[in-house]
């Protein structure tokens, strides 16, 4: 075999680094959306590689629903300190207090949808012109058609029928006043690629991804973590289980998996054997067949 040949992880890495550098070069005020989940952790790592030995030429932005796993916040703060990045936090609670967002009620109440309002407000407040995020095309079918450089109008909306053609590695980030871009540097990665890369690069991960004991309850076939703001139905019972998170998002809609995987290798083995998509545990996607598409049109990530 030709020795001048990259394996798939290095090729994906190279593509993502190219996209991240393109953002830094083409935009005046880019920002990297950081949720504390594995995808945003990987993008942050790629961004460090892209600009090393310089620091990140953009801040990290965490849209904080207030419904977090404490481990996520600890990890976030440690990482920011370690890499010397600037962190901006947009609080969903603040949007609710200002009356811009209305808290959902009922058993399945979640602040996941409200994030969009806080995100768009924060983008406007800081005049960010490009927000990078960890969305991947393999996650959900509406995402399969998303561009690397995704143009958003003045209202932050996505028009799936009118996307800019994106060819080769030429990314058109030109825009009019008030418009901005969402950029997805790891568009072409799968869940498996992400974990393989974490292993390859030995990236430190939040403890939530590894097996631990947690109080959980089962709703619609999905295990959810209990939390002070979660209401249990009469038929639901909290119990201690051995679990790990497959995705990390807002606690109210992040399903946990019964798992004893305690190392990256074990997680990868588990994913290789698993038969349900990672978003299968996301209550937010189950709302309707086009749930993701609708949220994206509104300006959701």
């Amino acid at each position, binding site marked *: *075999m030709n020795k*001048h*040949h*990259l*394996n*798939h*992880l*290095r*090729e994906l*890495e*190279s*593509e993502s*680094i*190219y996209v991240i*550098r*393109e953002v*830094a*070069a083409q935009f005046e005020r880019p920002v990297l959306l950081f949720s504390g989940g594995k995808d945003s952790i990987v993008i942050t790592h790629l961004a460090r590689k892209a*600009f*090393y*030995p*310089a*620091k990140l030429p953009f801040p990290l932005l965490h849209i904080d629903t207030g419904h977090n796993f404490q481990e996520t916040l600890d990890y976030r703060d440690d990482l920011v300190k370690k890499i010397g990045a600037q962190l901006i936090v947009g609080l969903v609670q603040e949007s609710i207090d200002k009356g811009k967002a209305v808290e959902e009620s009922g058993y399945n109440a979640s602040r996941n949808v409200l994030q969009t309002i806080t995100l768009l407000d924060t983008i406007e407040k800081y005049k960010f012109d490009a927000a990078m995020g960890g969305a991947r*095309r*393999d996650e959900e*079918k*509406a995402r*399969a*058609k998303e561009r690397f450089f995704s143009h958003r109008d003045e209202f932050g909306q996505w028009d*799936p*029928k009118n996307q*800019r*053609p*994106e*060819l*080769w*590695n*030429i990314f*058109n980030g*030109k*825009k009019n006043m008030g418009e901005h871009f969402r950029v997805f540097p790891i*568009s*072409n990665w*799968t869940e*498996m*690629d992400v974990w*393989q890369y974490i292993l*390859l690069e030995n990236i430190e991960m939040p403890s939530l991804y590894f097996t631990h004991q947690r109080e959980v309850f089962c709703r619609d076939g999905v295990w959810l973590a209990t939390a002070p703001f979660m209401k249990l139905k009469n038929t639901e019972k909290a119990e201690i289980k051995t679990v790990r998170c497959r995705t990390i998002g807002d606690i109210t809609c992040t399903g946990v998996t019964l798992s004893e995987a305690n190392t990256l*290798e074990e997680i*990868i*083995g588990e994913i*290789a*054997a698993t*038969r*349900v*998509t990672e978003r*299968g545990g996301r209550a937010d996607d189950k709302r309707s*067949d*086009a749930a993701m*598409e609708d949220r994206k049109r509104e300006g959701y990530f």
Partner: protein
Amino acid sequence: MSFSNNGYLDMELLRFTTAGSVDDGKSTLIGRLLYDSKSIFEDQLEAVKRASIQKGNDYINLALLTDGLRSEREQGITIDVAYRYFATPKRKFIIADTPGHVQYTRNMVTGASTANAAIILIDARNGVIEQTLRHTFIATLLQIPHLVVCINKMDLVDFKEEVFETIKKSFSTFASVVDINDVRFVPISALKGDNVVDESQNMPWYKEGTLMSILESIPIENDYNFTDARFPVQYVIRPLTDEHHDYRGYAGRVAGGIFADGDTVTVLPSGIKTKIKSIDLFETKLNEAFPPMSVSLSLEDDIDISRGDMIIKPDSMPTISQDIEATICWMNQKPLRIGGKYNLMHTTRDIKCIVKEVLYKINVNTLAQITDDKDVGLNSIAKIKLKTTKPLIFDTYKKNRVTGSLILIDEATNETVGVGMIG
């Protein structure tokens, strides 16, 4: 998916595109590839089963796996390029799933732009038709290195070898006209699964491997140009910290050739020569960089270099000129304006250009050159002449897909309106 850890860490990535007419069974084929390679998850399959029953289909409609947007499901068509992912123990695959309608040439061009291979689907009952020629032409225009022609719906022609051979022959006649290096033929039934992932029991006369085995084994390691060294400077890294006070790194992705530590290089457009001091990626110092690696180069001498410049090796000079001839595909409702000004993006450069002339249009169904009608509208393919405000540093598209491609952007709307292949 069978799984070995080290094996998985060292797989190749193959990007391919699929082209077929509306009823050639393209979505079914992709569904079949995903399903038989066990890349479909239970919850996805459940959703498709539910939808199939709802639509009154007799079997699980695998085509529904790939319908993304609501309007597509409503209309039962694919509107936009969709990207799909699957892996076998040998390779990871990215499919650019492009719709086959006449009006969607632009999507096919988009999907083809990054592909190593193209699957061209032919309905065994219809043989080579006008659209087959169009798909093949676009694949070759975009210089996709490998073509796999799938003759589908073999179940509907009783799996007859003659049908396969006749279509193969008529395709080959056509293929001799266009520029194809590597073409293979597979008789399949996407619906029944024959020769997609599993070998067909119905076509013992065919012995050249299933579609999947072909996709797993096409040699792609030489798809890049390793001869002509090209490094478009993307970003200048200047840490300005006490620790790295004087560090100046030129970040970019190798577009061609091999750069080694200590190599003499020329910086264009200035023409100044210097040597590579180090090739860095994060904390690692590399001996060599080759396509498509993203790295950072530091040079021996302090030279004024910025984004849009190109670092090359002096044994192979690119063309430097303000006059460019390119074959373009028009991507916008608003037609090309002769004499019009556009923004032009090429590698990491962003300049302005003026359209001087339309030399001819190409009839994508017959490949005939049209010289008496020079209106270039949506989905038109034409050879044009451009003049840029500053010299462009480029190669022909045939020589290098990165340094030979460009896009045209409308100055008012900022939309990407045209895409071009130089030469």
